[in-house]
């Protein structure tokens, strides 16, 4: 019995510690900045006021639009590229391809900090001839992050469980190899795509370092850059900043709660 009480106590404390910063964020977004500094932990009535302040101080809507565009394009492209490759590596297995696959996996060990300088210079060179995909463009944000070895690995792992006879049936019915992929594989792998899409969308929505390096003009700002700027202001308006963070966090949190099962399944799928 005492063991049971111990378990519950530990889990309740862990849950409170995990939730508290969220509660504080939500409560603070409804309070005036002065009350936040006084340590007020009760919800207030100033959310609309904070929101208006926020809209007047920063370009929230353009930043939301930028982040949404970048995340959606990244996710769609990433799904296509990674699933084609994951499928190819598993269905058309060969020794050379396995070697290539293992080689690609090495890229997971490469820290982004080591890539950012050469990538920045690479896009700097591109800027001189093709400015629309160079520095300070959405394309430059998207291109280097769209293909990850992790996603290819993830799709290959999931393809291992795929009943290959269905593919053969499709071929006999006269589908081309691309037809087999799009008409048979993609529809049956919906759950895998859902999990991979959530992971990619969240990573892109939250990405900070590369946009910080490559985006320069304020009108291209993404949400993490905007929040980081707000957070480093010298006389912070806490209510307003917390409102911004609530707005930035809620979409991701909602998507997560709606698709929680897929998300966890996705994380697991990557390990099994």
């Amino acid at each position: 019995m005492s063991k049971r009480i111990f378990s519950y106590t530990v889990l309740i404390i862990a849950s409170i510690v995990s939730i508290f910063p969220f509660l504080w964020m939500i409560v603070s977004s409804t309070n005036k900045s002065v009350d936040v500094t006084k340590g007020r932990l009760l919800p207030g009535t100033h959310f609309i006021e904070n929101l208006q302040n926020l809209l007047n101080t920063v370009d929230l809507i353009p930043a939301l639009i930028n982040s949404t565009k970048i995340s959606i394009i990244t996710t769609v492209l990433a799904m296509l590229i990674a699933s084609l490759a994951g499928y190819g590596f598993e269905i058309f297995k060969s020794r050379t391809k396995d070697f290539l696959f293992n080689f690609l996996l090495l890229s997971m060990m490469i820290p982004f900090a080591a890539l950012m300088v050469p990538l920045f210079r690479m896009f700097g060179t591109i800027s001189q001839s093709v400015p629309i995909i160079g520095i300070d463009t959405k394309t430059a944000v998207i291109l280097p992050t769209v293909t990850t070895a992790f996603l290819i690995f993830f799709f290959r792992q999931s393809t291992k469980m795929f009943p290959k006879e269905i593919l053969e049936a499709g071929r006999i019915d006269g589908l081309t190899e691309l037809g087999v992929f799009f008409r048979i594989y993609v529809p049956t792998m919906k759950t895998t795509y859902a999990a991979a899409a959530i992971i990619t969308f969240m990573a892109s929505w939250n990405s900070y370092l590369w946009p910080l390096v490559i985006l320069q003009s304020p009108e291209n700002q993404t949400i993490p850059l905007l929040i980081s700027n707000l957070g480093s202001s010298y006389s912070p308006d806490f209510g307003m900043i917390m409102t911004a963070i609530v707005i930035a966090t809620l979409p991701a949190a909602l998507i997560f709660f709606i698709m929680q099962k897929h998300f966890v399944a996705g994380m697991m799928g990557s390990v099994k």
Partner: protein
Amino acid sequence: MITAKVNQNQALKTAKSGRKIRAKNTAIGWSFVTIASLMICLFYFYPMVQALILSFQSGTGANLTFTGLDNYARLLKDPTFLTTVKNTVIYLVIQVPIMIILALFLSVLLNNKTLKYKGLFRTAIFLPCVTSLVAYSVIFKYLFGQDGIINIMLMKLSLISEPIQWLTDPFWAKIAIIVAITWRWTGYNMIFYLSALQNVDESIYEAAKIDGASSIQQFFKITIPMLKPIILFTSITSTIGTLQLFDEVMNITKGGPGNATMTISQYIYNLSFKYTPDFGYAATVSYAIVIMIVIFSIIQFKVAGDKNE
């Protein structure tokens, strides 16, 4: 005679067309993996080669000249670099073990079949993973502020008599960062252990109970050995993550006070985009992270491998 020849011809034909089909299949197979492979080579491996070449060059901005191993010599004498390595290693050796033990512990508690509200606890503890690194960093910056809610609560509980300088004291600033990272990632690792635990055969524990093993013995003698592959996986990913630490430090302390919390990634960023850009030296520093990742991964594989024997 004639029929034999026809047969032979036919056999030759099928062999030929078989080869053709196989060649066609190989081509199709390769076309599926080409785009992804090219993208990874272009945006990961090619820049790494570029960084290696850069690391032998020096100068400001685009005016770079080859200086041989000068950058590497400078690296070993650069006090800021050595401080950032020290900081990063401190985060690593303190934060990763604490987080993994905490996550293991929580997952064992949650794996209890008779526990109520399991889903609720699991969701609550996993919740921090939903936040973006920047968003939670800014929240923690204010939580740990001098008149932030943590100091207010600690003082109300009379645990401290005056506010702790969480963000301006070199020691406490490191603690604040470690607390923040642990908050963000413990639930994430816990989910991995939890799903691995669900695959462990219940009867092993029952047998251990009959043999009189205590909960603690069961934890160290059964749970940890059974979860070893997944612990290795999470400790390697956490190590790689911590060695690249950037968002949190940038947004909680900006690396301060002085350089007391600055990480290697942040130093690379500063060298390239904040100070007068020295891309060559920044590339040299970035190779230091690569080497550290390789070393730590090998150590972890060795440690896990030895126990297997």
